[in-house]
């Protein structure tokens, strides 16, 4: 479980995240949603420690992450997997080397063991015969899957995903969502996903935090998001033609 308590972050005079408290549960996919520029990614980066919050604290299973020394933080970071928006694969390394990278850095496994683990992780994300390819030779969806394979290579306890579906076609986006959901259950991880994709929200939103202008505006899950009375959330949810058709008729709860 990851807890963020009273997190605030500003850049210059601009307050981007304002006094937000969240609890990310273990074994489910926790979503942070909202329009672009509402502070989702900044909150995620504060939770994961890529940005230092101006106020507030982050706890990883009760361990105060924000107050840790570099070495203590390093230990927790080895329990974290992160899927970046663009994949963030290392350009100079092959797919196989990318997946083996964390194992090489932090374990003393033999080359054969590392390769076995990399192959297992790649097969887990349904990727075969790409071991020797470079990231530049892969499609967007494949890059995301390699990034997921790298993220799970060290059996992480926490998985962070920053807009995992951005730039993907609906079918590939669905596959990625399914994969995130499956590995969350399989590894019993605490998964945090930042997204503004309503399909993802309805597919994997087991716990949802909606941010609006840097504030926590609403929290719930995929079952009650369609029945919200919150006007800002309604505006976000029922923007596309597809979701407009899902809008429940007043008084009828589906």
């Amino acid at each position, binding site marked *: 479980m990851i807890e963020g308590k009273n997190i605030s972050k500003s850049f210059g005079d601009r307050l981007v995240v304002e006094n937000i408290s969240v609890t990310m549960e273990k074994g489910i996919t926790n979503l942070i949603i909202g329009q672009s520029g509402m502070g989702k990614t900044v909150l995620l980066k504060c939770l994961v420690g890529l940005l230092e919050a101006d106020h507030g604290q982050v706890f990883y299973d009760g361990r105060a992450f924000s107050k840790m020394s570099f070495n203590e933080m390093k230990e927790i*970071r080895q329990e974290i997997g992160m899927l970046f928006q663009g994949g963030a694969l290392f350009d100079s390394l092959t797919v196989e080397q990318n997946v083996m990278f964390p194992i090489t850095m932090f374990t003393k496994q033999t080359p054969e063991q590392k390769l076995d683990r990399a192959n297992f992780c790649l097969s887990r994300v349904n990727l075969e015969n790409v071991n020797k390819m470079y990231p530049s030779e892969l499609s967007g969806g494949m890059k995301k899957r390699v990034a997921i394979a790298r993220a799970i290579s060290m059996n992480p306890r926490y998985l962070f995903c920053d807009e995992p579906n951005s730039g993907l076609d609906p079918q590939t986006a669905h596959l990625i969502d399914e994969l995130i959901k499956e590995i969350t259950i399989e590894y019993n991880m605490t998964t945090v996903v930042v997204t503004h994709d309503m399909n993802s929200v309805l597919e994997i939103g087991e716990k949802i935090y909606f941010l609006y202008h840097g504030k926590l505006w609403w929290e719930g899950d995929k079952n009650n998001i369609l029945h919200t009375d919150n006007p800002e959330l309604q505006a976000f949810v029922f923007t596309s033609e597809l979701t407009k058709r899902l809008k429940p008729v007043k008084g009828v709860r589906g």
Partner: protein
Amino acid sequence: MVEMENLGLASVGIVAIISIFMGAVLAIQMAFNIDTPLIPSYTIGYVTRQSVELEFAPTIISLILAGKVGSRIASEIGTMRVTEQIDALEIMGINPATYLILPKIVASMIINPFLIAMSMILAVGGGWLAGIFTGLFPSAEYIYGIQSFFHMYDLFYAMVKTIVFAFLIASISAYSGFYTKGGALEVGEASTNGVVYSSIAIIFMNLILTQLLLA
């Protein structure tokens, strides 16, 4: 080793070409300026060697390397920054500065003295070839000149400059790339800044080191 190959061996060609022509031009200019029989023609060899050894090889070649290697380091690290590869390293618990920058600084400081030594030899050789092809000065006199009044300390001075300049090139360019924010445009800016600032630093440090070591 990989960094030494990327930063050093990849620069052998450009350093070799520049050095040969630099030495040749230097020797020809010297020959044209010495038009009195009172100055022996072996002076051409001696002055060419001294100029190359003290200034041209360590400083000019380092400035060339600031352009070639500096832009490479800044753009490589800058691209890694804007594509979140550095964030990925940080998330894994790896210190990105230690992992990315330190090997480049160490590799530059090890490989650049070899490049500069090669440059010195080729530049002096270039001067000799210029003499052969133009007939402006006798080959034997030139060879006698390059062997005359040699001081080991001059070589020490050149190598100290080279190592300091290598540190400046790698560290300033890496810093410039590491703190890139934005996208492709900013990576280009970081690359330019890396080259400009490391070149300026080289010129200033050249003055300081010369004052310290030769004055």
